[in-house]
């Protein structure tokens, strides 16, 4: 469950975004520059909006009127960045354990489950630089999950992957949704990713919400318009 409202001014974009959603996976859909990643950054605390209120799972993370701005490290969100951002000096195992160790959690059962789910066992001793794009994103997703987040934030996790890797990571994300049920916000400009993963879609355009649709409405609209062939 998320309540989100923010106003913020960049040099090239005025953001005025508000929405509320109680579904398991929410997609933020729009063109590049629509403000999607800024919304994720605001949820994670990496961007402090000029004004707004962000409530995640009943916990107020940011409220400009009340002067609340929970520190990034305390927000308990698992952020999967577009480029993975694995720590280059740590192997995959140490990357996976980074969040858990930061929070003082030592749960081998979780580690084993996530590693099995994302099929990361063969990668554990590898350096991030030696991973393919798809492997890197799987490791980044595992690392975010093992920090035991209240919400998983996925910033275009399939961008830059070739067709086969993209399909693979998409399958893993479907499996995660089915088996773990972590509240997820997915940023994407690919309609097929929305169709495959989301329950509800917030459409963003030019820094504003252009609509909020259930997944089926979104799919019907896209198919009806012939705009995007769905996977």
């Amino acid at each position, binding site marked *: 469950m998320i309540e989100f409202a923010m106003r913020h001014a960049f040099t090239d974009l005025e953001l005025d975004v508000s929405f509320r959603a109680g579904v398991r996976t929410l997609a933020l859909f729009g063109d590049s520059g629509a403000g999607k990643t800024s919304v994720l*950054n605001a949820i*994670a*605390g*990496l*961007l402090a909006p000029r004004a707004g209120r962000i409530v995640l799972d009943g916990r107020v993370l940011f409220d400009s009127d009340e002067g609340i701005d929970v520190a*990034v*490290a*305390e*927000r*308990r*969100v*698992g*952020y999967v*960045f577009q480029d993975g*951002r*694995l*720590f*280059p*000096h740590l192997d995959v195992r140490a990357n996976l354990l*980074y*969040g858990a160790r*930061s*929070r003082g959690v030592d749960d081998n059962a979780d580690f084993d489950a996530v590693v099995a789910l994302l099929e990361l066992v063969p990668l554990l001793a590898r*350096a*991030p*630089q030696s991973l393919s794009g798809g492997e890197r994103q799987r490791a980044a997703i595992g*690392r*975010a999950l093992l*920090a035991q987040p209240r919400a998983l934030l996925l910033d275009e996790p399939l961008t830059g992957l070739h067709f086969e890797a993209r399909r693979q990571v998409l399958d893993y994300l479907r499996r995660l949704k089915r088996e773990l049920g972590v509240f997820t916000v997915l940023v994407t400009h690919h309609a097929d990713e929305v169709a495959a993963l989301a329950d509800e879609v917030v459409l963003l355009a030019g820094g504003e919400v252009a609509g909020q649709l259930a997944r089926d409405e979104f799919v019907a609209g896209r198919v009806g318009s012939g705009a995007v062939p769905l996977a």
Partner: protein
Amino acid sequence: MTGWLSAQDWQALVLSLRVGLLSVVLSLPVGLALAWVLSRKRFPGRILVEALLFLPLILPPVVTGYALLALLGRNAPLGRLLAEFGIVFAFRWTGAVIAAAVMGFPLLVLSIRAAFDSVDQRLEAAAETLGAGAWRRFATITLPLSLRGIAAGCVLAFARAFGEFGATISFVSNIPGETRTLPIAIYELLNVPGGMPGVNRLSLVAVLVAIAAAASATLIAGDALWRRSPDTHATRARR
């Protein structure tokens, strides 16, 4: 080599090595902190701090030594205060360490700061979202990814400290066995009749140490000793 160098030569060499190493060890924690602040923080007076940092590089070393004497000498207020606790720097080998540390400090900080600047801050942001507080981010991300620059800075500061002359002789003078470092010993030998063989010996030693330090810096700055990590040099984007 024991027979080649006299007991006094050895004394000067060992003292210089000790002064050089200790000056780096003592200034490293302060250098790390200042380099981090200059790399990551914007604050009023930052330009003034940077200008002060450069001073030992620009001022004649003798002036720096005199400033240390004026600050830490037995008749200076701070020197008198420290002397009450039994801490005396003027005309002691510990003072030579202070002089060497001050002279090497700008090189140490500039090198470490450049290393911190080259760490992709998006990795630090990623660590923050994973629950890492400021100290953990510094210790587990910033520091390991800057090790090469930190090591290079240490070598440069050591080399500067090893060759230090002007500030040292002004602050702690030339006391055999106490403050007569290698450069001071060479200078003294230049001024005594029949001192040239000693000058040649010690100069050769200084050249060998300088070559070793330069080779270390080159090795450290290159990829020979370190795993290449291209992600650390990625261009910074908005967090």
